[in-house]
């Protein structure tokens, strides 16, 4: 294998110095003379109409600039999940403010004031009277024929039926049915939602800053809403304090930009943690019914999956999310018969939406829990069961008819099984369970994959533009939205590798609509695979241009120009060497041309990144506590450009997956619809003390279509954790639990039921 300078080397994160010294500015740290501050007032009804809203007293408070409500803001809708200007959401339901309040805590007003304190005080002085309406808090209630209509168009959005083959006609001697559930979670990005919008009185332009996942999506949403030309709205991504999906929807940007334009001012809004939980989006709660037909020796003949997602009060991205889950069903196993149905249902509860993996967690929990159950019923080891059924590299996945490219499920399973010590641990659990009764030990595993691009759902285009500077260094313009996971570092490494120059000489800023080519944004784990390819192509073409100039300077044909360690020479005369600086000078000074290159690439594949997770748990039958004793995540990553950062990603996936499986849940009061957990006090999340020791393994079988062989990693890391952990708990207890989270009361209840049987 080729030895690279930077690719595959652990070199820490880009911007690490700024972060470790406190110098890096996040959106919340931005301040300027005359900046105004916004605060929102939360509604206090679960479902109802605003009867009256009295802002008189609040308006009189010195320092209050303006108060916004449904009465003085546009009645037009905006789509919070829009990526491109040509996307229209059906149904489009959200406005800045609505007289119709659909969940407890929904914003009813916003105050812009000189300070945060004044804005907060004014919010408290606003008096709102409501006319209450009957509410539908659970999906079950919202699905009833006589359910309160949360939106005119109804509460339910049915996903288009999808599938392949004919499940009903599939032949398999054994039939199985399971049901799985995932609860609502909060992303828990350490930085809450924040946006700043500044109207420039000198030219009528608006600039918006925030930790966004899509600057162009924000721009089209806001500019359309404000009826401004896109060229007059500039959106700049600031350093992001984590997202995990919560920064990919436009929750506050239209409001902040509207106020900035209206007041011709500089306005900032920072959400509190409570607002972050209640007023952005949570992870959907999912109910899945899975049915399959399998031969006696474990060959899968077909699968039928029906899912219901709770959308919360507005559909937003839920119809798309629901559909995507169906699209993921053919990506891991050979299956000739798939039937998918799904729906998302509005309830009078906080909005659910985008979450890391966009459906892979849901598909994997539903299906992998099912296969673990099937394997157990058939008396087949779960690893062996999967080995019989997984797709081979380059196989065609039937839901889209596209290749899975170089996905290595078999390697993930075999290498993972060995490294984890699957057989030995199974035996160890059996032995420990025989020795004593209080603690039950078990092992479990799950397999999945996730995307590396949008292909073939939509054209996946990416562009980059690079300019050699006077001293031979390079500035690259590529709209990266780094979540903190190291994508800027990955791009810099790609450029430095191709141009054989010091990493220090490569400058690359994050996304900015004004001086960068278009990009959809950071979704689908596409950054390194899709944008990385554009950056690599751009750098390669730039080097060709530089070689042409070098040939003219050296007085030889381009074909014999060689480039090594930042120096050009003619192969026939290696003693005369010129640098990138010399080449730039020759280009500008002698030839009268600039040295830059722009490249646009279209990806024509969507390689799956395979992930297998193996875990061993200890369940305390007295307390119901589940402890992960050891676990291993295996990823078929193609090539880890930043191995250190990739391992960090795996760690976070394990942390969040454990949370999903055993402790994290945002509960809603089933009677009142109020969010019961609005802070970290009652939200159980694994800290450094509780986080188990874990192992990581990367299988680096290069993906030929990826830059240096790389594929996506950012999202797949979370998907297999919860079903593997669920399987381990079931192995320990002899249960078939699949409704998450498996909290101590759930475990104790299951043990009690098991004992009664």
């Amino acid at each position, binding site marked *: 294998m080729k030895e690279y300078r930077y690719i595959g080397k*652990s070199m*820490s*994160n880009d*911007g*690490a*110095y*700024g*972060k*470790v*010294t*406190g*110098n*890096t*500015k*996040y959106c*919340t*740290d931005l*301040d300027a003379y005359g900046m105004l501050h916004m605060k929102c007032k939360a509604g206090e009804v679960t479902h109802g109409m605003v009867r009256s809203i009295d802002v008189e007293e609040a308006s009189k408070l010195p320092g209050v600039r303006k108060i916004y409500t449904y009465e003085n803001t546009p009645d037009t809708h905006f789509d919070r999940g829009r990526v491109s200007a040509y996307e229209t959401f059906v149904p489009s339901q959200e406005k800045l403010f609505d007289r119709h309040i659909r969940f407890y805590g929904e914003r009813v007003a916003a105050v812009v004031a000189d300070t945060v304190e004044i804005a907060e005080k004014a919010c408290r002085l606003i008096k709102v009277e409501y006319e209450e309406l009957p509410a539908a808090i659970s999906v079950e209630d919202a699905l009833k024929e006589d359910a309160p209509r949360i939106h005119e168009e109804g509460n339910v959005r049915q996903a288009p039926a999808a599938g392949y083959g004919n499940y009903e006609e599939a032949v398999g001697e054994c039939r199985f049915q399971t049901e799985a559930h995932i609860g609502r979670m909060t*992303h*828990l*990005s*350490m*930085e*809450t939602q924040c946006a700043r919008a500044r109207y420039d009185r000198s030219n009528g332009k608006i600039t918006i800053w925030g930790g966004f996942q899509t600057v162009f999506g924000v721009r089209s949403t806001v500019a359309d809403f404000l009826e401004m030309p896109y060229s007059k709205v500039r959106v700049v991504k600031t*350093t*992001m*304090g*984590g997202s*995990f999906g919560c920064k990919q929807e436009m929750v506050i940007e239209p409001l902040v930009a509207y106020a900035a334009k209206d007041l011709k001012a500089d306005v900032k809004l920072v959400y*509190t*943690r409570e607002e972050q939980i209640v007023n952005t989006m949570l992870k959907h709660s999912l109910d899945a019914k899975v049915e399959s037909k399998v031969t006696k020796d474990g060959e899968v003949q077909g699968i039928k999956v029906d899912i219901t997602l709770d959308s919360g009060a507005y559909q937003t991205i839920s119809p798309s999310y629901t559909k995507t889950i169906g699209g993921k069903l053919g990506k891991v196993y050979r299956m000739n018969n798939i039937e998918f149905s799904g729906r998302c249902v509005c309830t009078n509860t906080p909005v659910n939406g985008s979450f890391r993996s966009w459906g892979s967690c849901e598909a994997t929990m539903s299906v992998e829990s099912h296969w673990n159950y099937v394997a157990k019923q058939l008396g087949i080891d779960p690893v062996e069961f999967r080995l019989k059924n997984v797709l081979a590299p380059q196989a065609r996945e039937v839901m889209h008819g596209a290749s899975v490219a170089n996905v290595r499920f078999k390697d993930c399973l075999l290498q993972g099984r060995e490294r984890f010590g699957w057989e030995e641990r199974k035996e160890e659990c059996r032995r420990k369970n025989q020795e004593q009764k209080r603690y039950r030990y078990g092992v479990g595993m799950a397999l999945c994959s996730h995307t590396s691009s949008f292909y073939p759902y939509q054209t996946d285009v990416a562009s980059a533009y690079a300019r050699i500077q006077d001293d031979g260094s390079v500035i690259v313009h590529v709209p990266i939205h780094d*979540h*903190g*996971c*190291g994508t800027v570092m990955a791009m810099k490494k790609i450029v430095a590798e191709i141009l054989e120059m010091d990493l220090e000489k490569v400058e690359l800023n994050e996304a900015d609509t004004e001086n960068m080519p278009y990009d959809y944004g950071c979704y689908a784990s596409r950054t390194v695979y899709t944008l990385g390819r554009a950056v690599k192509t751009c750098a390669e073409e730039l080097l060709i241009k530089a070689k042409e100039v070098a040939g003219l300077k050296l007085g030889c044909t381009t074909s014999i120009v060689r480039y090594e360690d930042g120096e050009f020479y003619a192969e026939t005369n290696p003693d005369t060497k010129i640098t990138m600086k010399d080449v730039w000078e020759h280009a500008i000074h002698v030839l009268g041309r600039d040295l830059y290159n722009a490249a646009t690439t279209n990806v024509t594949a969507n390689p799956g990144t395979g992930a297998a997770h193996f875990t061993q748990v200890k369940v305390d039958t007295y307390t119901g506590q589940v402890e992960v004793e050891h676990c291993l995540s295996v990823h078929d990553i193609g090539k880890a450009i930043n191995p*250190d*950062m990739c*391992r*960090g*990603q*795996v*760690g*976070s996936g*394990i*942390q*969040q997956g454990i949370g999903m499986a055993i402790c994290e849940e945002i509960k809603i009061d089933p009677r009142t619809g109020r969010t019961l957990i609005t*802070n*970290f*006090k009652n939200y159980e*999340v694994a*800290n*450094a*003390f*509780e*986080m188990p020791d*874990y192992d990581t393994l990367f299988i680096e079988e290069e993906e030929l279509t990826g830059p240096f062989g790389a594929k996506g990693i950012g999202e797949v890391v979370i998907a297999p954790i919860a079903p593997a952990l669920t399987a381990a708990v079931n192995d320990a207890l002899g249960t078939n639990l699949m409704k998450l989270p498996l909290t101590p009361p759930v475990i104790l209840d299951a043990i009690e039921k098991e004992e009664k049987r």
Partner: protein
Amino acid sequence: MIINFTLNGKPMTVDVPADRRLLDFIREDLHLTGTKEGCGEGECGACTVVLDGKAIHSCLTMVGQIDGCELLTIEGLEQNGELDAIQKAFIRKSAIQCGFCTAGMVMSAKALLMENPHPTEEEIKKAISGNICRCSGYREIKEAIKSVADGEEV
């Protein structure tokens, strides 16, 4: 209220309402924005600073409480252009991702190492158990602190 304290080694006297949150005082009055707010109720650790050698939540502390004390924020660790050993270790061990927890995490680690230069792995875990990091599984962070405790050189 007039309060006297030492900010990152320099004596300061300020007139400030005693009940102002220390976090707001640091971020808004002193313009030291390295200290972050993650939850505002002492559960996430992003706002951790070191007061008289102890790691504290600046969101739960009032300015009046720092009268006569030594306050150390993330901005005070780098000395004469050289990073503190714990800062270097966080970079070396790739313990920084989104960075929003980093300042608080580093300050919790700093307080631990000031009191106990050679903590065990258990002591390290305990010292940062009040600091949430959502981008990692804490492994790189623990390794960074351990490397300083073990005297590992750059």
